[in-house]
């Protein structure tokens, strides 16, 4: 088991590119009051689109480089190491484009892929809903009209919605007769009537999340992706992809290494033996996750596999632990609040990152929520419970759980 010479060369090339093109992070100039460094991020992505880096994960036939998962991870890790914005912060490229390539119609690809390729259209992704506790449970309803659908519902945890032009989302279909048991993907123009972006709030360093409400929003048929009635596989896969996509932002292993190192450096003296041991334990856990990732990427790298599910669970739990350690390390300074602070220009209270550490811990705990169904799915995949057993959390869509 070893890295191929070609991959090793690419890794060096990636590191060289990132080192020479990412100027580093100067909080004084780049951070607006929400903590989001828009201008800097845009300048960075522009460079990526000029080179071929932005589209590297796309298939060659669609203008990409056909990078494997292992190569994509190399890229993510190189960026995380220097705190450069992740590709997943351009969800048009990292999520919507590949979804269109997998499930979109010819017409949708022709219309939506070019503006994604040249970065002229900003996308956001709205999959989860505020009421969700375990697993995917979509209650946004698309009522069929003659030439499109009428959409009602609320999407939560939508990253950078306030800066996006379009949203990729998921809804359940309702005809005049009844709710049919299948999902559709929707490409929603956020400037259309009936769309409200509610209360954006900070979701960790450098990003904001918001709820997006759809009240009788009209979506033409040309913007509907029909997954069909035959199988749950496409939507299961879409959900898994969404979780993995979020993880590229919040749970990247190189990013976690970075956080642990920073904590260690800042608190080299006086953090106490026990805390230091906990940092070590987190580091070891992180290495185990990295090893699993490497093996996983070398294998099938299927998002519905057992390995993918285990990785998701362990990554989210680790992030929760690291966020907690961060709070512990900052001692009293962890109690100061970020958002208000940045309104004055005197810089943060206490060490950088202290203000907001508790909010980050809250977000990290929430994130574990969406993986609550994973153990249940794993029990089935591993044959611990019968595939048809009904006590599990995720019952497939049945007549009983049809939305009103």
């Amino acid at each position, binding site marked *: 088991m070893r890295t191929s010479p070609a991959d090793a060369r690419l890794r060096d090339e990636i590191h060289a590119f990132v080192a020479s093109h990412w100027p580093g992070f100067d909080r004084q100039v780049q951070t607006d009051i929400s903590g989001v460094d828009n201008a800097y991020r845009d300048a960075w992505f522009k460079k990526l689109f000029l080179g071929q880096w932005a589209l590297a994960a796309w298939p060659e036939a669609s203008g990409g480089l056909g990078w494997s998962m292992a190569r994509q991870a190399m890229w993510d890790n190189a960026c995380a190491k220097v705190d450069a914005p992740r590709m997943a912060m351009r969800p048009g490229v990292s999520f919507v484009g590949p979804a269109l390539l997998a499930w979109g119609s010819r017409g949708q690809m022709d219309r939506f892929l070019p503006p994604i390729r040249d970065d002229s259209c900003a996308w956001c992704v709205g999959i989860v809903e505020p009421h969700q*506790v375990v697993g995917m449970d979509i209650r946004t309803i698309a009522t069929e009209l003659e030439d499109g659908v009428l959409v009602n519902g609320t999407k939560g945890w939508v990253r950078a919605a306030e800066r996006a032009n379009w949203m990729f989302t998921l809804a359940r279909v309702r005809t005049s007769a009844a709710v049919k048991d299948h999902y559709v993907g929707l490409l929603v123009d956020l400037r259309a009537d009936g769309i409200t972006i509610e209360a954006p709030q900070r979701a960790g360093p450098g990003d904001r999340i918001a709820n997006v409400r759809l009240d009788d929003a009209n979506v033409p048929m040309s913007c509907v992706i029909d997954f069909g009635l035959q199988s749950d596989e496409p939507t299961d896969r879409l959900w898994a992809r969404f979780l993995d996509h979020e993880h590229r932002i919040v749970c990247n292993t190189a990013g976690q290494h970075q956080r642990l190192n920073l904590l260690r450096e800042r608190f080299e003296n006086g953090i106490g033996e026990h805390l230091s041991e906990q940092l070590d334990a987190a580091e070891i856990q992180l290495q185990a996750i990295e090893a699993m990732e490497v093996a996983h990427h070398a294998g099938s790298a299927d998002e519905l596999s057992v390995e993918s599910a285990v990785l998701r669970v362990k990554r989210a739990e680790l992030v929760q632990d690291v966020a907690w350690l961060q709070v512990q390390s900052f*001692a009293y*300074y962890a109690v100061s609040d970020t958002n208000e602070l940045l309104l004055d220009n005197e810089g943060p*209270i206490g060490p950088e990152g202290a*203000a907001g550490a508790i909010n980050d811990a809250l977000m990290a*705990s*929430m994130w574990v929520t969406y993986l609550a169904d994973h153990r249940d799915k794993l029990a089935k995949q591993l044959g611990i419970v019968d595939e048809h057993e009904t006590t599990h959390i995720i019952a497939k869509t049945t007549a009983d759980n049809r939305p009103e």
Partner: protein
Amino acid sequence: MDFSFTEEQTLLAESVSRFMRNDYPFAERRDNVQSELGFSAAHWKTFSDLGWLALPFAEEHGGFGAGAVEMTILLEEFGKGLVIEPYVATVVLAGGALKHGGTPAQQAAYISRITDGSKQGALAFAEAQSRFNLADVTTTASRDGDGFVLNGSKSVVLNAPNADFIIVSARTSGTQLDEVGVSLFLVDVGTAGLSMRSYPTVDAFRAAEVEFTEVRVGADALVGNEGQGFAILEQVIDDGIVAVGAEAVGCMEVLYKDTVEYCKTREQFGQPIGKFQVLQHRMVDMFIEYEQAKSLPYMAAMRLDEGYGQAAQKAASAFKVQVGKSGRFVGQNAVQLHGGMGMTDELNVGHYFKRLTVIDTLFGNVDHHLKRFGGL
């Protein structure tokens, strides 16, 4: 050991509980948090009228001479309602320093103003480098004629933006980590050379970084004997631990009950999510953690009431460790079981989580108190 309340204690518990239930709605609390003051002046007046601000002080200063058990009763109810009024900062910390170490003149001048609600206080004991070590003090107080000159910075001084006076620890002798040589001074906020940078805390209180630049105070500003402030500080902080720990127990009770209620009513996949066994077990574990934390504040309070010493210190540290561990478990699981709804303002889970997490940090986290317990 008798764990039952006296008649007075039962009456106190009922009166606080009634106030929280009837007069402390969450929507109004939210408005008060966003007001300039950051809390309700009217509630503060009520706290005074009901005698809550006078609870721990001696009768000769207009107080009720109540013990730590009564404080625990009060603060546990405060925790359930997430009280935003700066009770701990003013009464337990600043007031506590005067109670345990103040001169008769200081007590006469300040305690009656705390109990009648007209003065707010703050205790400035932490510094940027000190973490939870109360003896780690670099702020200095040098002799200057009859008085002292203070220089240095204090970190995360709770309630400083609203305080009329601050009690600050400063070094009169010794080196940075010496317990001997730490002195406490009472400084009125208007005093020349005292400045601060204010900010909100994640649990919606107010705090400030306080700077002392050539602040001149008289000899009468000294709280306790010169160089002997550490012992006072330690006792005040142990009182503080029991107070916020009791609050944490109140928070945990609300989170546990809210979560059970939520899981019974929130339906997913055709049935209440509370029907899923994996979630039931998590809620049972939340209850187990809450139960473990629940009785400890009374144990610690009784030890404090028996007289301050090693037994009380150990009990306070033990309680703080348990509160930290239980609070983390209950808080994280409550957030997880509420899912995305935990973040919305209509449910308060996020607010309780933040207060619990802040309480874990206040006056020393789990690691700090494990170590202190072992060393005592």
